[in-house]
């Protein structure tokens, strides 16, 4: 689905990502873990097209998207969520999602037909809200949603554009146990329908969700494998997990 070859990014003397190879298989949840400063966010910015890579190629769904911009990658079906919640606070949950649908449904120079009763926008929006378990909160103004719900809403906005693949940047950040449990359920329910690349600190969530895990340390991918393989991997234990996790 997504094939990254030899991707690199330097900021002055610092190498943020160094010759990274990742191969995300269609339908899997692929997690990227690593200590702080390992270059995870840089990597996701490179993948989403917001940051230009120095070298390397990105193949998405069989075509080379190395040179595509962020918005055209998004239109090709590579959707991302942000580390910081970024929704429209004064819109309702459903309006938020409907707007995301609208953005992917051609231009918005339509001046007359009411958008709120437009089934082309509302139907996919409701479906997406259902998928993340927010159907009952559809009419609540986003700023009145809990933090966890707002993150769910972001996932719904990404889903509503019917992407082939989701890039999720720490979807559990700042969540309590209960909330992140709900997020894990949501992501689990998407498994198989959609390919997900996930960056996350919450190890319990990662090991519960991921089919495969890539460990990033100092910008290098030091290991890739199933959760069990990663748990057993000596290098990873040394470099990252430490003994208390074993």
């Amino acid at each position, binding site marked *: 689905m997504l094939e990254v070859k030899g991707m690199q990014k330097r900021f002055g003397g610092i190498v943020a990502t160094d010759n990274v190879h990742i191969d995300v298989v269609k339908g899997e949840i692929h997690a990227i873990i690593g200590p702080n400063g390992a270059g995870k966010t840089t990597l996701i910015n490179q993948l989403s097209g917001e940051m230009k890579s120095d070298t390397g190629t990105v193949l998405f769904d069989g075509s080379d998207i190395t040179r595509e911009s962020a918005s055209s990658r998004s239109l090709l079906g590579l959707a991302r969520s942000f580390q910081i919640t970024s929704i*429209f*606070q004064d819109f309702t949950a459903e*309006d938020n999602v409907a*707007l995301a649908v609208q953005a*992917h449904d051609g231009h918005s*120079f339509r001046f007359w037909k009411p958008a*709120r009763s437009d089934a082309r926008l509302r139907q996919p929006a409701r479906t997406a809200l259902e998928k993340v378990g927010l159907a009952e909160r559809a*009419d609540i*103004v986003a700023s009145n949603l809990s933090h966890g719900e707002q993150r769910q809403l972001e996932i719904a906005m990404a889903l509503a554009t019917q992407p082939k693949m989701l890039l999720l940047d720490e979807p559990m950040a700042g969540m309590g146990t209960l909330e992140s449990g709900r997020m894990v359920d949501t992501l689990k329910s998407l498994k198989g329908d959609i390919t997900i690349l996930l960056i996350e600190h919450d190890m319990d969530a990662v090991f519960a969700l991921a089919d495969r895990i890539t460990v990033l340390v100092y910008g290098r991918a030091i290991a890739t494998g199933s959760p069990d393989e990663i748990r057993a991997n000596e290098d990873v234990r040394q470099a990252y997990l430490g003994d208390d996790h074993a």
Partner: protein
Amino acid sequence: MTLSLRTIVPAAVLVLLGLVPVIAGAIDEPFYIDLFSRMLILAIGASSLNLLLGYGGMVSFGHAVYLGIGAYVVGIFSFHSVEDGIEWMASGYVQIPAALIASAVFGLIIGAISLRTRGVYFIMITLAFAQMVYFLGVGIEYYGADDGLTLYGRSEFGDWLDLNESSTLYYVCFVALLLTLFVSYKLINSRFGIAIRSIKSNERRTRAIGIPSYRYRLTCFVIAATICGFAGALLANRTDFVSPDMMHWTRSGDLIIMVVLGGMGTLFGPLLGTVGFLLVEEILSSYTEYWQLFFGPLLILIVIFGKGGIDGLIQALANLVERKPKAAAQSRDGA
């Protein structure tokens, strides 16, 4: 939209405005028709500004310029129709479209440059452009400079519509206001309107989800300018006179006050705000010549303590009456 106080009050105001010529005729005070036709026209101008201010988050401090441009087109056409004997220039069927086109063109130029900037820069640059057009009016001696131009005649629409008849002109303005409100209602609820409002809410995010904000903001700017130019064309007909003073920067300030006073980002807010503004002006100035001495501080108090303007007040009243919980008060209804 449910039948709430928030729709009943504006509806009542509209009905009353619709009856003004009848009432004025009954009590034999034709002067009121003149007073209230100004109210209608300014309400159109304020509604157009509301598209920018209330829905698009664009604080334009030069909106009165389009009033002036619309008015000047009518004034200049009328001038040439008599001075140079060009008869078709007296026709309203020519003047009105010309006024719309001229204000749209100015809106496009001013908007295209101003919208490259953000925040305070935008406020100041729209103010400065308005000042520039104002000085253009002051500088052109041919069209009367700062003394302005007196209309030779009002826009001619043929026998069926005689604008010299003051109640006819009044109803033209009234219908124009209804039309403006209807068009605004359709606009703000269309996909375009949603896009504009999302830009106001969170512009960076809007661009991130794939809506290029600049072109939508610019389109909104041009639409608002055009509607306001329409109001200007009516204003010229009402006053039989155009002058640079119509686009003085304080006029732009007045329009902002009307929008905020009534309730920004609400369909009827600008109408209520215009009615409120002009009534306060009438009342205060009937007591003292120095009415602005009181209006200035009143404005400051409204800004500091008032939230949501008259519309917000009605909303609060309605909640008090119906004892609605506060959360429901934050209705998502854009109207």
